[in-house]
């Protein structure tokens, strides 16, 4: 079922590509427009996805079982990791690299890895400080200072 859902998503993506390709202008065969390639790629994606979807219905069963797809998924860990990464990116400029990285590492070690508080904080401090020294001071990358600059 999941592969069929993926096929449907790809078909929608193909339709979006074709519609936008037409909007950008297809041009002519002598001078293809900016939308020509997205349109062609969209058509190709749509055809392949449709064939895959139909062959999935025809075969009846897939080589990948639905139970196999999510059987070993730890939604809690994957969810926390994903959300904390998105929050980290969203607050990257405000918190700054050092504080943001420290908090992210603590979350990853404490919540995801389920380490004790000390085992989570000590490596987190080490990673954030060392990476700050390595990337910001040694390599001179313009990483945001965030709230540290206010302090």
């Amino acid at each position, binding site marked *: 079922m999941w592969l069929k859902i993926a096929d449907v998503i790809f078909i929608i993506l193909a339709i979006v590509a074709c519609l936008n390709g037409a909007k950008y202008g297809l041009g002519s065969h002598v001078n293809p427009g900016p939308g020509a390639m997205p349109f062609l790629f969209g058509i190709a994606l749509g055809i392949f996805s449709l064939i*895959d979807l139909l062959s999935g219905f025809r075969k009846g069963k897939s080589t990948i079982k639905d139970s196999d797809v999510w059987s070993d998924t730890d939604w809690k860990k994957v969810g926390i990791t994903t959300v904390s990464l998105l929050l980290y990116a969203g607050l990257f400029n405000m918190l700054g690299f050092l504080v943001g990285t420290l908090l992210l590492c603590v979350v990853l070690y404490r919540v995801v890895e389920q380490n004790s508080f000390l085992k989570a904080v000590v490596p987190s401090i080490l990673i954030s400080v060392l990476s700050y020294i390595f990337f910001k001071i040694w390599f*001179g990358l313009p990483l945001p200072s965030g709230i540290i600059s206010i302090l």
Partner: protein
Amino acid sequence: MVWVTPAERYYQYFIGEVAVEFLQPMINGLWSMLDPTTLFYCFMGVFLGTLVGVLPGIGPVGAMSILLPVTLNIPPLSTFVLLAGIYYGSKYGGSTTSILVNVPGEAASVVTCLDGYQMAKNGQAGPALGISAIGSFIAGILGTLGIAVLAVPIVSFALKYGPAEYFSMMILGMTLLVFLSSTSVMRALMMACVGLLIGTIGLDPIAGVLRFTMGIPELMDGVGLIPLAMGLYGIGEILTNVEQKIRRQISLSSKVGRVLPSWEDHKKSFGAILRGTVVGFFTGILPGGGATIASFASYAIEKRISRHPEKFGKGAIEGVASPESSNNAATQSAFIPMLTLGIPSNAGMAVLLGALIIHGFTPGPLLLSQHPDTFWALVASMFLGNLMLLILNLPLIGIWIQVLKIPFRILIPIIVVMCVVGAYSVNNSVTDIFVMLFFGIVGYLMKKLSLDAAPLILAFVLGPIMENSFRQALILSSGSIKIFFVRPISLSMLIIALLLLVLPPLIPALRERREKMIQEKEEES
């Protein structure tokens, strides 16, 4: 009388005066490789390569993608030497975990588990590791020699190609990749189309129209290779690893002991190493062929021709020597299409191609004619890199056994931080971090659904080149599509591509063979 070196005589004999022009740059390239900075990066590359090979979880493509932004601040040659070192170094490291812990550090080392781990259980971990390193070294050196020998003739030939031939070659390359992909042809084609579509995001180079930018100014230049590759291979791997419980312990049965194989072991392995090298070299050249298929193919051949096939799977040293030589030869020969034609045969080569473009190099035959020193220095680095790897994997094998004891999950936050810094530092933009995270989630879902990311990333890299070749060919022919069919080389490539797509579903034997291959790969993953 002018003294002519054997190398000059070879080149003059085979391809005439053109090659002689390459001899001086070749010597210059070899010398520039001896620069301490380049040597340092070569060592770093093979060291990190072995490290990622030893640590299951993050593969060479992920490591190369993560380090790509860091390389923006170092000289181009050092960048290529570093990334290439990671790529071929990982194949050495992958065998260590296969032999000692029965967990392949790298997909290409899966087959090594069969006999390598059995040898370790029989108290022969040392000779297994030894023959693996020696076989890898011989194959690496012979593979690199292959690059040196074949590069000039291929480039001389490819320089005569026009945009029509280039377009057809890209089509053939992608078709081969799709044909040899680990998933079904249709799904690999879908992934390639998605990669091509992602490649169209941004400002159209000819008409100046914004495509699919969704009003995000940072997307005007398109999606960067770095956030895309780091997302699919770095963050995607991390999310997969977060939920997996990889337990690795070195069992007492795998005491390493003496790593140098006995004379008897050498005698048994010599032929296997050479056969593995030949099989691997030719498999590696094919787009999508890669080290994994090479190792399986050479193992199957070795088992078939062996006088004692029953010993395979129970600790036959040939079962270690052959696939390990094969995957290293394939790794080296994969550089040939990328360096000479600008066609990456796998995702690792696509990242390296991206590095070439980022550093202002034109991939393809022009690379050798415009930057021969860099090209030959890179080839020289492979000789030296393989030598360094032999030292790292024979006398210093103890280091990697200690590394094996580090739980991978401890490294997850470090890898995440490197990915974030890498994505951010390209344009100093948080948008790139979000792009990377988006593709990280996509990569994770693709892994769950067993969709191969390699066709996507390859199509993404090749897409813009293909679009340019297509448009140029049409301009040259005043819009006639016939240009792709009237030129013999272009036509031949298109016919081969078509046959590859059409024949397997029609011919039962081919279909069965392909399905068997997919099944083997699924079992392996």
